[in-house]
């Protein structure tokens, strides 16, 4: 017997695979990534390192943008077009519906990431950059960061319109990468009140920099498995936290 969660997840995957907007975003992402590599070629020295760095940064930004786009649009579209009405009257709980949507979008993100990895490898190969296993560590971070961002977009989309929801999600992404610096700054500050506020902010947001292994890839240095395990555990807990928040809001939602 197929679980309703799997049925919804499959349908969500199919929806996105057949969506022309997604292909437009992917083509744009690939062009952006190629541009980042091309910029790396302008360097006088360290061409390879710069190409990898800019290429990975390009993929990172595109992937985060794609995640926010998917989370905000798909969720809102279902409510706005009222297709959700005929779903929620079936033997399907609201939690099952959200889990199915989430898993479907996560599967799409994984597919996109495989595409990006293939493009990255192809461009690196063309440029003659030596490919090492360490080059691919950042992609693990990307998918777990995507899992958090997706849950965050679900959370915002459960009570905001797509524009506001995507703006808030983007702000969340930027803050998530910035709190690391804030925490470092608080350690050097002499002001106790600043330290307190900075720590409070640091604890309130996931530190997305813990999932950033681009420097390791550029330096071709190995990442300790313990560090990876710790980062993905924390990321999973944050994703779960935001997902449960969105479930709580969605359960009490009226479809007027």
């Amino acid at each position: 017997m197929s679980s309703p969660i799997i049925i919804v997840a499959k349908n969500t995957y199919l929806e996105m695979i057949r969506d022309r907007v997604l292909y437009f975003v992917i083509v744009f992402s690939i062009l952006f990534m190629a541009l980042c590599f091309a910029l790396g070629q302008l360097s006088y020295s360290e061409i390879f390192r710069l190409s990898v760095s800019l290429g990975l940064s390009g993929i990172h930004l595109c992937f985060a943008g794609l995640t926010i786009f998917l989370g905000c649009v798909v969720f809102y579209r279902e409510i706005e077009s009222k297709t959700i009405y005929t779903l929620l009257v079936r033997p399907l709980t609201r939690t099952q519906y959200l889990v199915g949507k989430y898993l479907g979008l996560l599967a799409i993100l994984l597919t996109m990431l495989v595409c990006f990895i293939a493009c990255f490898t192809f461009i690196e190969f063309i440029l003659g950059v030596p490919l090492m296993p360490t080059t691919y560590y950042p992609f693990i971070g990307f998918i777990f960061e995507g899992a958090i961002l997706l849950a965050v977009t679900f959370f915002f989309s459960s009570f905001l319109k797509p524009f506001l929801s995507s703006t808030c999600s983007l702000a969340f992404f930027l803050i998530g990468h910035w709190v690391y610096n804030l925490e470092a700054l608080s350690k050097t500050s002499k002001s106790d009140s600043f330290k307190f506020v900075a720590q409070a902010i640091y604890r309130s947001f996931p530190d997305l920099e813990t999932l950033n292994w681009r420097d390791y890839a550029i330096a071709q240095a190995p990442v300790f498995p313990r560090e990876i395990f710790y980062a993905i555990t924390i990321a999973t807990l944050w994703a779960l936290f935001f997902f449960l928040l969105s479930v709580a809001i969605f359960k009490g939602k009226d479809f007027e």
Partner: protein
Amino acid sequence: MILTVRNLNKDFRHPWNLKKIPVLKDVSFSIEKKSIVGFLGANGAGKTTTIKCLLGLLKYNSGEIKLFNQDHLDNQSRMKIGYLPERPFFYTYLTAYEFLKFYGQLSGMNSLKELNKRIDYLLELVGLSHAKDLFLTQFSKGMLQRIGMAQALVHKPQLLILDEPLSGLDPDGRRQLVNIIQNAFDEEGSTIFFSSHLLDDIDRLCQSLVVIKKGEVKFSGLKEDFVIQGARAFMVQYQINEKIEFKKVNSFDQLQIEIDQVRSQGHPILSIEQERMSLDRAFKEFQSREDI
């Protein structure tokens, strides 16, 4: 009873001052098995809100809803419901076959062989066999409404809830959909509860009515009773010498006066008949009455 609604109350909040706006006030009615029940009311009377409460799409403030003697949100009772919303929008990226397969599987139909058989039967029933592999984006409004009916019927529901299924369709489309609804009742044994503004179709299809006005159920019962209740005119037939006279009076009070008058003049009353009305006229009369 297949559906029982007791003392259902629902308020909306004003978006600015957050004041409560009552939209359903002590709504109570029930629906018997194997019947077609029309849900009548003017725009904004509370029909769609009531239907959404029944289906769990809206949370109500107080009251009780029982479907098949179970809680209306129970998965077991949901398996027995089919629903077609007002102005349905469907997944346009799916073909008609994929669309029905998706809803069939969601409703617990696990045997793909049986599901495929059912899909073929339904596509034939709604006249869309030729469009099995077409994407819904290529469908006209009438075709969408018919595929919507098919999704509501895919799991052979015992109760079919239809919200304005006939609105916005041309006469031919309406006729087709009325036939499908009639077929669901005759061949599949579904109980049907549907709201509509099109009283001709309600008159043709329904045996019972639930009439709602300003968030309150004002009538629940047989259609004939509603039509008689709405009719206020009486035709009095009496005899003066050898001649038979007719007199029409427009209220029960006037009728009493007329009877007294005819009798005091010593003329025999031959018959008193309540005027027969169409559902359309009875509903208009009902809407115009201030006392209800």
